């Protein structure tokens, strides 16, 4: 029960943090960290996968509502929600992990970092590609993806540290 409440709180908290503060940072003129995707990273693996996909989609769609951006964030969030399990399996070199008790914060730091980096990069690349939607803008897309990814990765690591220290 407390697990469900915690996830609801995380969902709403991250959404509000994203639209009220993080979307207004504009670091170096452009980079806004997208911390809301932390929800997709830490959502329990043992939960129903269909529910997870729906929640990720809705979270992204809510962000889209605030940014007038159509379905960009919804699409990117759904994508990383879908590839989360394959990426984890690939990183751990195992076909079957004991996912019932698995937590990504228990991963060794390097694996955790590469997991976060892959997810953030895919998410941001999807967002900027959909936003610019042309091959001519490929340099803009890549530079913005890389710059924003760095920012998001750093914030996600700090947030994970905070979340684990509390317990």
């Amino acid at each position, binding site marked *: 029960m407390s697990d469900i409440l915690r996830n609801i709180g995380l969902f709403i908290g991250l959404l*509000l943090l994203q*639209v*009220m503060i993080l979307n*207004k940072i*504009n670091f170096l*003129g*452009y980079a*806004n960290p997208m911390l809301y995707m932390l929800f997709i990273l830490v959502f329990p693996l043992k939960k129903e*996968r*269909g529910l997870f*996909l*729906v929640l990720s*989609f809705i979270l*992204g*769609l809510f962000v*889209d*509502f*605030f*940014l*007038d*951006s*159509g*379905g*960009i964030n*919804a*699409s990117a969030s*759904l*994508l990383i929600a*879908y590839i989360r399990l394959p990426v984890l399996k690939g990183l751990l070199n195992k076909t079957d992990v004991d996912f019932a008790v698995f937590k990504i914060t228990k991963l060794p730091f390097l694996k955790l970092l590469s997991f976060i980096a892959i997810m953030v990069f895919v998410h941001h690349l999807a967002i900027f590609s*959909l*936003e*610019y*939607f042309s091959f001519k*803008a490929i340099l*803009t897309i890549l530079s913005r993806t890389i710059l924003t990814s760095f920012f998001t990765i750093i914030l996600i690591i700090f947030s994970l540290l905070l979340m684990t220290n509390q317990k």
Partner: protein
Amino acid sequence: MQRIIGFFLKYKYFLFFIFLQIIAFSLTIKSHSFHRSKFVNSANAISGSIYMKVNAIEEYFYLKTYNEQLLNENVRLKNQLALRLKDSTIWLQDSTKYKRQFSYTAGKIIHNQFRGKFNYLTLNKGKNDGVEPDQAVINSLGIIGITNTVNEKYATVLSILNGNAKINVKLKKSAHFGTMAWDGIDYNTVQIIDLPIQANIQVGDSIITGGKSTIFPDGIPVGIIKDFQKENNEYTSINVKLHNDMSAIGPVFIIKNADKDKILEIEQTIH
């Protein structure tokens, strides 16, 4: 039959994923190709009220800037008034005979966006205040955008920094018309396309709105020419530096064109 059901069961998550992805894509394409995204927009009660709360705090950081803007505008208007009083002996018009074409409403931008390629702003006025789609939004420094989706209390504004925004502009000195667009790179610089080569432009020339559309009145400031390139007897690129700092926008005016319906009506008889 069992095979088909088996197939669906085996790939149910993948199919579900594809289904949701199709929804997201259609929403995205709708918002890109046609600038009025009907369903997903920030002019709704939830995001509107949240942006109002954030803005209530945020505007304190810009009080000084807004005050200076207001002061400058007052000085300009007072000077115009002084000139007018000196020039004409009879300047009071009979208000029953005089019909104004444009009326102004004050509003406030409660959410500003300038980072992406398709930028929208959120305005704290809606249908209840007489705001309708396709009205001009300006401030004392120049143009800002066009109202887009409108609900009872809030409206979204298609920023001039939006890949879909095409606005008719002209050179102040020679009245040659062109179209303003944005390439999505620098939020203080916009581009002018299809300006005829006969227009002899120089760096520093003023650009104003053309008044050919039913949205913007004639002569609202836009910016000054920053640099341009000429090739094969045509302008290949003209960059215009905006008067407005698009990253800090607060109080605005919404302009209503009372003759809009009549202009559209007469234009329709031609086609």
